């Protein structure tokens, strides 16, 4: 093999080749780092919305819902849109990281685990600081047609066959009360000595409650547990409940 060191140096000088700037060499990497941060932020936001859409669940329900029924309700009414978007953000975050100048070093499993951890922590923080509440409300003010797909809260509390019904108390009679559910149907809810109440539940007209129990008849339910909704799901209620609702006759 011949020595071509002089040839290389001559070529560099003749063609006026100079080292490229560090920024020019690394700009693509910087772009991918930025994209990764964007994906982490979006992933955290979507995950906080997942948490938000499960926040109506309370451990106090579990003794009153059989395991099979609970799992079925969770699966059927999961916020799949936000779950899928969270997952996609994680995948795109991984791809973006892999395209940075150091992205080849750690294994994919390690990077994905780290992304899941970071997104989960940020998502929980976002949920605690009510970022998800604001996003949820903003989204449905602007895109109410997405409600059914992205916010299963109404669907979850409109499953009388599975023993879950939510709505607004419109009247009381003896120990029972009348509930106007999210579909505008009026239900009579039987209360007896077995019925448990959450600490803040008040059986007064206007109160928004969720009832877990057993459906006895059409539009009649035996309550096992009454839970008060103490978060503002105003957007859900606004179109469903007129300002005054007539109390149904016995």
């Amino acid at each position, binding site marked *: *093999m*011949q*020595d*071509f*060191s*002089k*040839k*290389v*140096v001559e*070529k*560099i*000088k003749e063609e006026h*080749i*100079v*080292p*490229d*700037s*560090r920024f020019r*060499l*690394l700009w693509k990497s910087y772009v991918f780092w930025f994209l990764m941060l964007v994906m982490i932020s979006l992933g955290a936001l979507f995950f906080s919305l997942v948490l938000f859409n499960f926040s109506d669940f309370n451990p106090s329900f579990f003794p009153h819902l059989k395991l099979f029924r609970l799992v079925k309700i969770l699966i059927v009414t999961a916020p799949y849109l936000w779950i899928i978007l969270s997952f996609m953000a994680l995948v795109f975050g991984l791809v973006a990281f892999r395209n940075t*100048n150091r992205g*080849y*070093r*750690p*294994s*994919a499993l390690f990077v994905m685990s780290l992304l899941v951890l970071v997104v989960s922590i940020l998502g929980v923080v976002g949920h605690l600081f009510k970022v998800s509440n604001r996003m949820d409300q903003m989204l449905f003010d602007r895109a109410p047609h997405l409600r059914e797909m992205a916010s299963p809260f109404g669907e979850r509390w409109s499953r009388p066959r599975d023993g879950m019904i939510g709505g607004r108390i419109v009247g009381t009679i003896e120990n029972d009360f009348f509930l106007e559910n999210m579909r505008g149907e009026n239900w009579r809810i039987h209360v007896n000595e077995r019925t448990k109440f959450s600490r803040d539940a008040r059986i007064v007209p206007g109160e928004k409650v969720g009832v877990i129990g057993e459906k006895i008849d059409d539009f009649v339910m035996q309550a096992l547990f009454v839970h008060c909704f103490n978060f503002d799901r105003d957007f859900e209620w606004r179109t469903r409940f007129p300002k005054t609702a007539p109390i149904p006759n016995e």
Partner: protein
Amino acid sequence: MDNIFGRMAQAQNKASDNELAEAAKTNPDVFGELVKRYQERLFRYVRRISYFSNEDIEDIVQEVFIKAYRSLNIFDGEYKFSTWIYQIARNATIDAIRKKQVRPKTVSIDEDDAVKLFRSEINIQTQLETKERIEIIRKIISSLPYKYREVMVLRFLEDKDYAEIVEIVQKPRGTVAALISRGKTLFSTEAQKNGLL
């Protein structure tokens, strides 16, 4: 005057690769010393992982040095200069293979390389008297998929450690370890089939 240039040449000879790379950013003549140090090693390396003619390999290696010169500002001494230049050489070889768009038939593994690789595989000192056996070893090495062959060449012929191989092939450490392990298994299997073990 000759003394001055002589002393400068001596100083360059003693300087480390990283020091020369730093100086070369503003002085292409200094880069010539780095070319001298690495041209033969890179030539052998590219020959071991590709099937090109000597002329093509010389072109590729010269192109590698030009690319390295252009990219000097990205070399920050985080790892060895040799690791970095091997990385560029590896990527340039892959680009050249893709441009040719022809599946490689046999790579240029010489007798010494074949023996060295075989002995590193089996950890047994065997006597390889016949050219026929050496030729079989060369064919086995050539038949290995590229991803195994390149890491085995780096490990057993270029004597790179795992950390360096990770940087050169730009894959995670676990992947590199798995590729070497799998490559050794494939090599041993073929060697047994051909009666070498």
